Structures are given as structure tokens and as C-alpha cells.
């Protein structure tokens, strides 16, 4: 059963806005700088966005890294649908494309990019998907929002914002590329 608050959100995002467009911009600026710092100028590095919204975030990070340091870090797409562990239980999911930058993942530093880190199951699936594509030198994880409640031993290397949540709440990331505006919205759960 979808809570009334969530249903309302589908049409009009009137949930609790946690981050606005400026916050998201600053967070991405910071993550881009952190990537440059932690990887010492990002040689042999690629960003792989996990559909849907990780793809746009990976593109934005690549654009910022190019702007800040004049370094080209290619951005690609990694679809993980067929690697999910709940295929048998849930309704059919359409597959998305997987588009790797030229050269593939072999011996590259692969930075996975997603919008929300929650149970960790998506990242687990992504690690398996990368493993089937080749042998990267290392794999890191960049995430816009970490909402906790991990079910697997997974943590992110780059975290935009930690948002403590209840399990019955929902964190929705809205991005201009898909939704026409940037925001992170908390919906559902009991009123607090």
C-alpha cells in the first residue's frame, strides 16, 4: 500500500525537501574534488553510472572533473537488472543499456556512481556485473545520499550526504535530466 504522502509526491513533490539544487551542486563539486584528490588526478579511471539516476550523476561528475582539472574521465552506464537477487520475486523489470567507455574496464579504476545507498544490494549486483565485464584494477563507490540500513558489508568511498532515515521512509532523488528539477525529497513514514 502506497502511503498517501508518497502518492501525493508522484505528482507534486511536497515531501520533506532535504537537499535543494544548490546543495546538490555543492556536493557534486566536493565529490569531484575528492575523486581527484584520492585518485591523484584520476589516471586510468572511469565513472560507471547505475541506471537510472546514477547515469546522470556520473555525467555531471565527469563534467566537473573536466572543468576543475582539465582531465577527461570517461563516463559510462552499467545496467544491473540481470544481476539483482530479487528477480524471482518482483515484477518484470525492463533492461537498460550497458555502455562502457572504449577500452573496457580491464586494469582501470572503476568508480560506480548511484543516487542512494540503502541495503547495498544494488552495489553487490553492480560488483558482480563489473566482474563479468573484465578485471578492473580497483572499484570504488560514489553516492549522493547514504540513508543507512545496510544489509551487506558495503560502504561508499565518496558520500554526498548521510541522511538518517526510518525504513518506512523513502528517499527520492530528483534530477533535472529526468524530473525537470534537482532535489532530494524524504517521503513516507510517520510525521516527525
Amino acid at each position: 500500500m502506497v502511503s498517501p504522502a508518497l502518492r501525493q509526491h508522484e505528482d507534486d513533490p511536497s515531501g520533506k525537501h532535504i537537499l535543494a539544487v544548490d546543495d546538490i551542486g555543492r556536493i557534486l563539486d566536493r565529490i569531484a574534488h575528492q575523486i581527484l584528490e584520492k585518485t591523484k588526478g584520476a589516471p586510468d579511471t572511469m565513472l560507471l553510472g547505475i541506471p537510472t539516476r546514477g547515469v546522470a550523476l556520473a555525467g555531471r561528475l565527469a563534467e566537473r572533473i573536466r572543468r576543475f582539472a582539465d582531465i577527461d574521465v570517461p563516463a559510462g552506464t552499467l545496467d544491473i537488472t540481470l544481476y539483482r537477487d530479487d528477480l524471482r520475486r518482483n515484477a518484470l523489470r525492463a533492461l537498460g543499456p550497458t555502455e562502457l567507455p572504449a577500452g573496457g574496464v580491464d586494469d582501470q579504476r572503476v568508480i560506480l556512481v548511484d543516487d542512494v545507498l540503502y541495503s547495498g544490494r544494488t552495489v553487490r549486483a553492480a560488483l558482480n556485473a563489473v566482474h563479468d565485464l573484465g578485471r578492473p584494477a580497483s572499484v570504488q563507490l560514489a553516492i549522493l545520499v547514504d540513508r543507512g540500513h545496510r544489509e551487506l558489508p558495503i560502504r561508499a568511498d565518496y558520500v554526498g550526504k548521510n541522511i538518517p532515515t526510518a525504513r518506512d521512509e523513502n528517499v527520492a532523488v530528483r534530477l533535472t535530466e529526468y524530473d525537470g528539477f534537482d532535489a532530494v525529497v524524504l517521503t513516507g513514514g510517520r510525521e516527525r
Partner: protein
Amino acid sequence: MRHLLTTKELTREEAELILDLSGQMADAVTGREVPKLPALRGRTVVNLFYEDSTRTRTSFETAAKRLSADVVNFAAKTSSINKGESLRDTALTLQAMGADAVVIRHPAAGAPQRLTEWLDGAVLNAGDGTHAHPTQALLDAYTMKRRLGGIEGRTVAIVGDILHSRVARSNIWLLSKLGANVRLVGPPTLLPKGIDDWPVEIGYDLDASLKGADAVMMLRVQRERQNAAFFPTANEYARLYGLDERRLALLPDHAIVMHPGPMNRGMEIAATVADSPRATITEQVTNGVWVRMAVLYLLLTNGEAR
């Protein structure tokens, strides 16, 4: 969608979903270091073949293995089926072993339908008598979509032994549902009776039917199903209904030549035509794997499967 028995019962939306998924499967696997996806790990797919087949059985087997399913092959000639076990008893055996999907080919029309009454798992029809062969039609449609850019409004000539062809029947329902114009061409003795309400044009002159066709689908003359004289000699059949170089030139430049295989070279199709770049015969085989992956994925992961 629980089973895939015929293309007639598919909705247009379901058919288009399968074709889209097939393309996504091709993209997901092509050019990878490990051409295998874990989507059906731990599921069992049984190939139950009461008729000879290399292409369809290996295609289903490859598709299932690409999705990491376990595959069990039952061939009638080497199993207890040969000792007189009934279809129902075989089905109950498979049920007891926990088959998640059963791919069945059977000489009797309707056998896959009966199987659905005894099994909890999904049933995929891989050809039943002269009735239906849905995955072949889907891979033909997928090939046309890829090569012609679409199916809506295209004209397809299906040529030859329509009477005995489950491939033709499945294609007629699928392609007309997807908006193609379907022409049937063959000797009157090899066209079924009572097809006035089929969504097709019927012709007896191959030269005339080739004009303006975007795709021509040559059918194998199924001698193993023929116990009567449907045409005087093989030579005459080849002359009247075989696709040779002269007839190939009658087709528009963009038109493709399809054949579900196995071919009788020199009979319904000349060797030079079968090997020409306009023939999509090996491409159809490749596409068959994508389409069967899509169908297995659709039937085994939709949350309706047990």
C-alpha cells in the same frame, strides 16, 4: 504471461515487449568477457523433444545457459518415452524433479497445451505438429525489425509448403498483429483449406508475389510429413516455387531472404541465393538465441512463476 504456446494468443504489447527485450539481451551479452548473465541462476529448464531438432534445441539450450539456468535435455529416442511412457507420466516426472520451465516439441498439435495442465512451471512451445512454433516467428519478426527498420506496413511473402508449416502459421498471426501485410504463395495442394478468414493475401504465382515484397520467407518442403503426392516432381517444384537468382532480382533492393532452416538447397532455395548477402539465414539463428533468452527471462522472472 505464464506460458508461450502460440503467437495467436500474444497481445501486440506482449509481442513488442519480447522483441524489445531480445534486443536488450543481445546488447547485454555481445562483446563481453563473460557472455553469461546470472538472471536465472538455480532455475531448471527442461528440453523435452519428441521430434528431431538441432537448431531449436541447441538454441534454447544456449539461451538458458547464457542466463545461467541449468538445462536438462530429454530426447525421445534415448529416454523412457521410447519405452512407451505417456506424455502425462513424463510431465509428472518433470514436475517431481522441479522443472521451472519445460520447452516441448511434439508431433501432435496441442501437446504443449496439455502439458500446462500437469505442470506448475512455464511451458514453452518449441513446435507442435503443424500448429505453432512461436519462438521461430518471434525470431523472424526480430530479424525483420532489425534489417528492415520495422514491421508495420512491410510486406512479407511466405512461400511454399504452408500446409505443413507451423512456422508459417505462427508468422501469419504474429506479423499481421504487428501490422505487416502477409502474402502466402505456393501450389494449391500445399495451401491449407478453410483459410479465407486468415489475415493474408493468397497467390499461386511466385514471380507476381515477389514484386514489392520487403521480405520473402522460404519454407522447407517437409517431405517427412507428406504421404501424398502434393506436386509432380522436385524439379517442377523448384522451377515454379524455388527462389533462384532470376527471382531474387525481382525483389526490391532492400528486401531480405529468410529461411527457418534446415534448407533443401536446390529445392525451395538455390544455393547461390542462400549464400547471398541478402539472405538472413545465419542471422536468424543468432537472433533465435536472443529471442529465447528474452522469453525465458520473461516467463521465469515475472513474479508469477512459482
